[in-house]
């Protein structure tokens, strides 16, 4: 075979291989999973809409990904349901039971358990590596709580890096009840400690109760295990319990930040239910962002928006509330990295999106902060470094 024919044959093989690679890349893209340099976030339910807005915008207000840059933000919802509901088994198969949702963190990898909540997201980030070597399938966690000292230690061991936190917004947690409720309007932190630990089981046990149902049984609801909002709530109650942890033995677990945790209760229980509920989600619900998931998609007959009808927040004077932070938590090593994120750029992905002293990362920019406001929260930009709870 002549050199020319050899070269031509080599070129042909090259073209075929390139074509096959191109085809495989298209296949990998078909499922919409992140590519290696995309930025992947997991964790908190309450933060998911805010970070989704930052990534993809809200209505005609454009997010970071609208720039059409090569690498994008993928912020995976907590439950796999964009309305924040938990998946259940098919009722046709018997009594429905809760499912662990799954998520494909990177294109071509197997689906893994989807971190449902801020604590679960932080744990997943810390477990995204072993023996000091990161797998880098998860770039950041959304969490309303800073890492604990033990989590910082575990991160160093597993990832070879400390965790770095930046507060991007502030929200407020209130007590929600049914619109028609037997609960007093100004439940205090002390009342809540006694209700959630089972010391108060009926409304009449609350000092000064003047409502219509003193003998009715209180139904305290609490976000599920793994929910950062559960941690926010219980941590906020410590000060009313002599600084000791509150064990909510009287509470029933529900999917966090979901009005149906109250509105789907039997009529007898509805007026006696209480649940911590964040203002941000309440505002977003009232703004018509979420649509009725029971209506099939149709441009001609769009679904009605969900509302907060049926529940109310107790925001009056004397009523318990607590402000809490929205944290984005990432590897310190990613902030320190010299690896430029977007082609032609100068910044790594942390500097571009979340933290860049002396410059304007996306979350600090006026358009980014407007998106956070439209999610019903108060924008912030506070570096917490390697702080712990």
């Amino acid at each position, binding site marked *: 075979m002549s050199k020319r024919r050899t070269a031509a044959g080599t070129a042909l093989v090259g073209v075929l291989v390139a074509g096959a690679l191109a085809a495989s890349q298209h296949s990998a893209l078909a499922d919409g999973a992140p590519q290696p340099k995309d930025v992947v976030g997991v964790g908190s339910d309450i933060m998911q809409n805010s970070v989704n807005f930052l990534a993809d*915008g809200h*209505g*005609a*207000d*454009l997010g*970071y990904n*609208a*720039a*059409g*840059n*090569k690498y994008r933000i993928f912020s995976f919802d907590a439950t796999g349901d964009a309305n924040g509901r938990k998946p259940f088994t098919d009722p046709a198969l018997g009594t429905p039971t809760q499912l662990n949702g799954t998520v494909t963190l990177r294109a071509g990898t197997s689906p893994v358990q989807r971190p449902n909540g801020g604590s679960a997201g932080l744990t997943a980030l810390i477990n995204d590596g072993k023996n000091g070597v990161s797998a880098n399938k998860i770039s950041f966690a959304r969490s309303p709580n800073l890492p604990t000292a033990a989590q910082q230690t575990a991160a160093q061991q597993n990832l070879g890096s400390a965790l770095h936190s930046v507060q991007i917004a502030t929200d407020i947690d209130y007590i929600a009840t049914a619109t028609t409720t037997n609960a007093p309007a100004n439940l205090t932190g002390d009342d809540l400690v006694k209700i959630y630990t089972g010391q108060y089981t009926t409304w009449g046990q609350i000092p000064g109760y003047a409502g219509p149902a003193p003998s009715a049984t209180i139904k305290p609801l609490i976000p599920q295990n793994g929910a950062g909002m559960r941690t926010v709530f219980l941590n906020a109650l410590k000060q009313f319990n002599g600084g000791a942890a509150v064990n909510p033995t009287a509470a029933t677990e529900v999917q966090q930040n979901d009005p149906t945790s109250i509105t789907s209760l039997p009529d007898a229980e509805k007026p006696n239910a209480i649940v911590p509920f964040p203002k941000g989600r309440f505002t977003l619900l009232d703004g018509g962002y979420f649509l009725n998931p029971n209506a099939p998609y149709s441009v001609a007959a769009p679904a009605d928006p969900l509302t907060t009808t049926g529940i109310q927040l107790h925001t009056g004077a004397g009523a318990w509330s607590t402000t809490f932070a929205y944290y984005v938590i990432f590897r310190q090593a990613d902030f320190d990295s010299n690896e430029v994120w*977007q*082609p*032609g*750029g*100068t*910044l790594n992905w942390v500097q*571009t999106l979340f933290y860049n002293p002396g*410059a*304007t990362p996306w979350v600090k*920019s*006026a*358009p980014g*902060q*407007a998106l956070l*406001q*439209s999610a019903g929260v108060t924008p912030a930009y506070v570096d917490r470094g390697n702080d712990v709870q």
Partner: protein
Amino acid sequence: MAALATVAVVVAAAIVWLTTRGSAAAAPYEDPASIGTLTLCDAAGKPVISGSTSAAPFVARVVSSTAAAGPYAVAGRTATLFAHQPREGADPAEWSGQQLTAAARYTDPAHPMAQATVKDVALADFLAAFPPRWHGSVQLRLALAAPDAPPSGHYASLDLKVDGRHWQVVGTPGTASCTTGDATSTETLLDPSVTSATRP
């Protein structure tokens, strides 16, 4: 004397041409997704074709020469200003970019308009993240969007050349009036204390 007058006329004509037509040099690329051009406006509502990269916001207002059409001409429509970094050898669709303003609701669909506020950034902010890689070029794009419609794949655009701390329009700037309608940034709609960069 006649020669002096001729020189004066030529110089005056050149000044007029430069302030209304931008630089004679064209950008070293073509972008098939571009469907029109842009007018840049200062805080007084006057067209500008050059300025300082450190001025914040970059400009007060940007107006498109091309009308919004179809799903982008409906109520709730928005226009958002982006800066992109031309890279030789890369398709314009792959050029990295960054928002310079939030989305703005505008009144005249014949001339989509982005409105900066006092909180929006200078061009220098973009340049720090994406320094010019091709003869000092920066491309501005006006992205159109509307509720329940994905961002349009086409946009009016304008090419700049950056030299040190100075930017200059290259090619032909837009001819749309800076006062053809009005626009309000989402930043202002959500927080009225965030004032428009255009003086009333």
